[in-house]
């Protein structure tokens, strides 16, 4: 272990707490309070890494976020962090880091040979060099050479959170100005002040001050802030983005600064979304380097950083320190250092005139001065040894006189100060050029934001900066502007010679400011050099607009907990546990976890599908069809709306009947199909495609709300209120008949495309006879909570008939055999109804419907449109896949493609559907099907290849009918013994959350609420007379938007205009429903019991608001969201109704199918509670 340097007595590091750490395999010692950078400097490590392009040696150059030189690979394994800035990594016991972009080590890097190629690697060399034959051929090589750290390849064992916070005032930066601003605004106790600071401890530049008065002031301010209940100080939080409407993004290091040993219950980082009333930027200022030959050598640092390392970390960085400056701040720093016993040899200043007082004090301190000089060269390998200086000409445009050599081991440079206005610029604020300080200051604000302190250009002492953008009279080749990306003044001049005018273009061409630096030190110098090269002033050149992030954000923080199973919201089927018990293979489909098929032991997926398909054709199958979209349309104009929305004529649809319907968008493109059921003259039920419910609902609402505002119609998505099962096959009727109910299932009484509602096993039921399999099918819906019981009842009742559960893949095979269209699979973004054979029917239609006008546009009349067809492969054993092309006559281009293809267990051969040019007129034609280099002959046929006459739908039989041609297929597997099983008389209600349904943590709890019942009341709110009538009828004023109101033991919650939820104590639901229906009789009001279709969760505990804020962006403060409020909002990616229920409790209502998702999600984000 090396001995580290003795610290100065006034250092802020704790020398009583030594820490050991490793850098590049060597063990060193530092102290608590050190950063990795200060500890490396203390141990004399001068080269930490290598630059990006030319692998030049790089050491610590600054003390904060602007240091893009000392980049390290922090730790190894899964915790590892690439490109960590040594100046920002607080030292902890056992830290292990490695220098980056060097091989074998930063001290001795073989790739440094690239430096010799510098002449041939100028700005834009990528664009000039790697164009032949193709950039692709070079990319691998370039990526290997020009790399930074390595991202860990294994999953991150830590976790990250995202959270929203609201504040009336947000102060960014807890330096002097920020602390003052926070205290001043906190005078108003109702004003929530959020004070964020990016450093390990608050204080900003005060931390670098040796003045005891500054330290006392800081301590007393922090004390006062701690006593202010309305100020929240968030340390280790870097504000990275300033977005529209005062929304800010900040990254907080929660466990990250403690290293891999941090408590694993705490997140590594929290990514904050901050909603601010107004913002105060107290972000300080960044010092600029000076641009002169060989200014990138290790041992050359920013003067302000030298000050910070000296006084905050107590380091004496050199024995012969030389300053090089163009402003007064470096003089103050030098004098302060001498006063604390740190030797300063000389100050070189480009200015001819400096305040006599400064000169006098410098001389008194034994500091040599060289006014009107510039550094023209530096020497030293690994460490700085000498600087060469020369006098500038009077006009500053050249050099004169002899060169002088100064011995030194540290050069502290100051090229002036730039207010840190990245966030101001991101907010849309314009920057203004201030000539006297040669810096950009806030100009015109675009949002409610102000800058204070040095961020506003208010420097504590006047700077008297004189521009010195580069050193004249010497080659600009080795005058570095962006140290990390190896951009020189010559590169910028080259860009100007090549006619780049816009600063944004120059930035991209030269990559100046595009490195890790992101313009923090290089931006203004680059502007200055471009201005000189193009003979313009800096305001004429303009400035680049800063974009988020100000500082890199970990990808893990962007992801939060949305990983793996929580990647996106999922919905669970009502009978999920039954499927899991049967060994279902699940697939994510339209957000639902659905069984694809139920493979038995030793069965492949294909075998399972074949068995299930044959069981449906031969006996009976049972499918969980709950995701089938179900929309209820109520109102006097309901029929009119549907007639306008569907291609079909629905004016004649009688009550109790169902009709297939096709829905288009206004462009005439087929977007959905389904079955429309007429429940009553003014009440319809739409069955949309699975997963299409939300988009069809949205389309109906958009037309109703935006175009046909006078239509009196209520549309309600009831998809998740009902569990729906499809019982399909010749024995379906026999199975269903075993359940007690009041619906006559006889073939004559209940024909195909008819609908009945009644009761089944004691619960309300809706049964539709439609068929997506070609077999007699009953689509049976019961309240979602009874789904699991109904599944069990049907399985029990069907056992003796060989009932076979089948999955969605088997359903797809069944419908492909029948040639039934699946919108989205067999249609594309151009498919119009005439392509599906609907042209004739539409021609006879008299009413207009959405999309009709577009069908008559020229594009709709093209005979070569892709049309829906069956495709039969000619070779007996041939198979194909969806996506295979159908070739045009000359065999050279595509004339359509296969959209659905599978092996048909019924026919014993492949069946396929597709869309092919002009196919409707080409039935019987032989075509070629192309896939992956293979061409197969096929015939265009009618889509339906099993039972084209549809006789099986009429089957009333208790005996299975043979399917022609009879396949050589096994009989359905032997049914389970059934005699002992008992079909229930009453369907039981099941919990929406299988297994554990609560979370119990120290400061957060979640449980399933069963103490109340829910009723939904809807009215047509655009009828303005309705609300007063409703109030009169109920004798109670319903809550206004966002309100919750109590009516005795009832609790009303507003959910949308004309839409309320009523929570009543358990057991009072039926009475309450009757009361509402009686009161609103004759009014356009619909009351529906929804207890069974919702999940009601109670969330409470001291940190409940933290957990909620990790899923939603509402302001949850009791003053803004109290007991008389409620909100429908986005939580955990889904729509929920949230209502405070007193103290630290909240009621959360959502679709029942989301119960498991919500519980799992809350569990993941409450790990630290």
């Amino acid at each position: 272990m090396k001995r580290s340097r003795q610290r100065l007595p006034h250092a802020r590091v704790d020398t009583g707490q030594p820490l050991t750490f490793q850098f590049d395999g060597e063990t060193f010692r530092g102290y608590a309070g050190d950063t990795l950078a200060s500890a490396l400097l203390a141990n004399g490590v001068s080269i930490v890494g290598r630059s990006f392009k030319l692998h030049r040696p790089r050491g610590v150059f600054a003390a904060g976020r602007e240091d893009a030189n000392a980049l390290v690979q922090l730790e190894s394994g899964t915790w590892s962090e690439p490109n960590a800035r040594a100046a920002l990594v607080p030292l902890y016991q056992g830290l292990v880091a490695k220098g980056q972009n060097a091989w074998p080590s930063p001290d001795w890097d073989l790739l440094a040979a690239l430096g010799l190629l510098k002449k041939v690697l100028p700005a834009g060399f990528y664009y000039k060099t790697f164009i032949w034959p193709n950039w692709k051929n070079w990319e691998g090589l370039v990526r290997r050479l020009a790399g930074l750290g390595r991202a860990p390849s294994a999953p991150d064992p830590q976790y990250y959170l995202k959270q929203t916070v609201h504040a009336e005032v947000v102060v960014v930066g807890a330096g002097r100005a920020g602390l003052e601003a926070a205290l001043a605004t906190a005078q108003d106790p109702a004003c929530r002040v959020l004070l964020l600071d990016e450093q390990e401890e608050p204080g900003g530049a005060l931390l670098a001050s040796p003045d005891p008065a500054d330290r006392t002031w800081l301590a007393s301010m922090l004390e006062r802030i701690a006593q202010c209940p309305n100020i929240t100080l968030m340390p280790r939080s870097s504000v990275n983005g300033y977005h529209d409407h005062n929304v800010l993004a900040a990254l907080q290091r929660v466990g990250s600064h403690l290293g891999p040993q941090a408590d694993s219950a705490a997140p590594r980082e929290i990514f904050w979304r901050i909603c601010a009333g107004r913002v105060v930027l107290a972000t300080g200022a960044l010092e600029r380097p000076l641009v002169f030959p060989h200014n990138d050598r290790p041992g050359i640092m920013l003067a302000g950083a030298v000050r910070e390392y000296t006084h905050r970390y107590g380091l004496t960085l050199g024995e012969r320190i030389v300053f090089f400056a163009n402003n007064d701040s470096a003089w103050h720093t030098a004098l302060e250092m001498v006063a604390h016993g740190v030797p300063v040899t000389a100050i070189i200043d480009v200015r001819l005139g400096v305040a006599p007082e400064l000169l006098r004090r410098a001389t008194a301190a034994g500091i040599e001065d060289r006014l009107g000089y510039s550094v023209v060269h530096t020497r030293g390998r690994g460490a700085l040894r000498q600087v060469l200086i020369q006098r500038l000409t009077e006009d500053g445009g050249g050099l004169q006189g002899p060169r002088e050599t100064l011995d030194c081991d540290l050069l502290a440079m100051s090229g002036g100060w730039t207010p840190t206005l990245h966030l101001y610029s991101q907010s849309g604020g314009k920057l203004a050029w201030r000539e006297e300080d040669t810096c950009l200051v806030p100009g015109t604000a675009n949002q409610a934001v102000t800058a204070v302190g040095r961020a506003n250009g208010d420097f504590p002492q006047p700077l008297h900066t004189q521009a010195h953008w580069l050193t004249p009279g010497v080659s600009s080749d080795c005058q570095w502007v962006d140290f990390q990306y190896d951009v020189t003044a010559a590169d910028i001049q080259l860009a100007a010679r090549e006619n780049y005018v816009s600063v944004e273009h120059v930035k991209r061409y030269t990559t100046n400011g595009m490195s890790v630096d992101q313009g923090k030190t290089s931006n203004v110098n680059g502007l200055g050099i471009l201005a000189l090269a193009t003979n313009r002033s800096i305001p004429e050149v303009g400035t680049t607009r800063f974009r988020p992030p100000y500082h890199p954000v970990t990808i893990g923080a962007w992801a939060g907990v949305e990983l793996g199973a929580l990647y996106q919201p999922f919905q669970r089927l009502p009978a999920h546990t039954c499927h899991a018990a049967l060994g279902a293979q699940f697939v994510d489909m339209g957000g639902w976890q659905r069984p694809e098929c139920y493979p038995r032991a030793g069965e492949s997926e294909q075998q399972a599908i074949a068995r299930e398909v044959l069981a449906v054709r031969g006996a009976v199958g049972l499918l969980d069809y709950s995701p089938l979209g179900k929309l209820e349309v109520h109102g006097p104009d309901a029929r009119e709306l549907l007639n306008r929305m569907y291609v079909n004529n629905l004016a004649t649809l009688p009550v109790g009947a169902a009709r297939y319907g096709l829905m288009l968008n206004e462009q005439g493109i087929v977007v959905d199909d389904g079955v429309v059921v007429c429940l009553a003259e003014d009440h319809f039920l739409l069955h949309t495609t699975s997963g299409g419910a939300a988009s069809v609902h949205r389309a109906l609402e958009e037309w109703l709300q935006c175009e046909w505002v006078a239509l009196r119609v209520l549309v309600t998505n009831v998809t998740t209120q009902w569990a729906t099962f499809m019982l399909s096959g010749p024995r379906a009727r026999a199975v269903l008949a075993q359940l007690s109910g009041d619906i006559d299932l006889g073939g004559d009484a209940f024909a195909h495309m008819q609908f009945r509602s009644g009761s089944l096993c004691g619960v309300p039921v809706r049964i539709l006879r439609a068929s997506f399999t070609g077999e007699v099918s009953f689509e049976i819906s019961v309240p979602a909570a009874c789904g699991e019981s109904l599944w069990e009842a049907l399985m029990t009742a069907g056992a003796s008939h060989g009932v076979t559960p089948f999955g969605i893949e088997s359903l797809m095979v069944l419908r492909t055999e029948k040639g039934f269209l699946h919108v989205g699979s067999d249609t594309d973004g151009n498919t119009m109804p005439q392509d599906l054979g609907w042209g004739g029917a539409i021609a006879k239609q008299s009413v207009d419907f959405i999309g009709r006008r577009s069908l008559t546009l020229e594009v709709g009349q093209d005979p070569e449109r892709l049309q829906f067809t069956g495709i039969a492969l000619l070779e007996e054993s041939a198979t194909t896949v969806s996506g295979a092309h159908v070739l045009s006559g000359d065999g050279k281009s595509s004339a359509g493609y296969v959209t659905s293809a599978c092996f048909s267990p019924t026919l014993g051969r492949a069946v396929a559907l597709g869309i092919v040019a002009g196919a409707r007129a080409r039935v019987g034609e032989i075509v070629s099907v192309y896939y992956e280099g293979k061409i197969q002959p096929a015939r265009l046929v009618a889509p339906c290849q099993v039972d084209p006459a549809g006789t099986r739908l009429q089957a009333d039989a208790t005996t299975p009918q043979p399917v022609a041609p009879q396949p050589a297929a096994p009989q359905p597997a032997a049914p389970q013994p059934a005699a002992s099983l008992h079909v229930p008389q009453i369907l039981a209600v099941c919990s929406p959350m299988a297994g554990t349904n609560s979370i119990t943590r120290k400061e957060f709890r979640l449980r399933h609420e069963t103490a109340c019942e829910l009723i939904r009341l809807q009215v047509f709110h655009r009828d303005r007379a309705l609300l007063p009538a409703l109030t009169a009828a109920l004798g109670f004023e319903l809550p206004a938007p966002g309100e919750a109101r109590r009516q005795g033991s009832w609790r009303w919650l507003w959910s949308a205009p004309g839409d309320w939820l009523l929570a009543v104590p358990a057991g009072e639901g039926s009475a309450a429903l009757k009361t509402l229906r009686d009161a609103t009789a004759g009014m356009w009001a619909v009351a529906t019991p929804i207890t069974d279709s919702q999940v009601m969760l109670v969330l409470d505990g001291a940190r409940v608001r933290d957990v909620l804020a990790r899923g939603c962006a509402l302001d949850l403060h009791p003053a803004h969201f109290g007991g008389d409020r409620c909100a429908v909002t986005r939580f955990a990616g889904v729509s929920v109704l949230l209502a405070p229920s007193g103290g630290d409790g909240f009621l959360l209502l959502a679709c029942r199918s989301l119960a498991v998702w919500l519980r799992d999600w809350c569990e993941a984000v409450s790990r630290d509670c």
Partner: protein
Amino acid sequence: MRIECPWCGSRSEDEFVCGGQSHIARPEPATASDAEWAAYLYQRDNPKGLHHERWLHRFGCGQWFNVARDTVSHNILASYPMTAPKPELPDANGGEA
């Protein structure tokens, strides 16, 4: 971005869906020429400055409403129900395309 829903108040942008330009009159399908119909379907303004859009509070009350937004400053100048008339608003940028 924060958006003011006329019913629910100020909410975070991720609760909303943008439905594109608002105040587009639907021509009478029977009498509109092909060109008029195509313009209604596809042609939209792209102003630099004041722009009227239709937004849906998808994760909230499910209502469509109009938003008048400055495409330069991104400031929202008004949000109003679908049935309300288009408000008179100053266009700071002159509305050039």
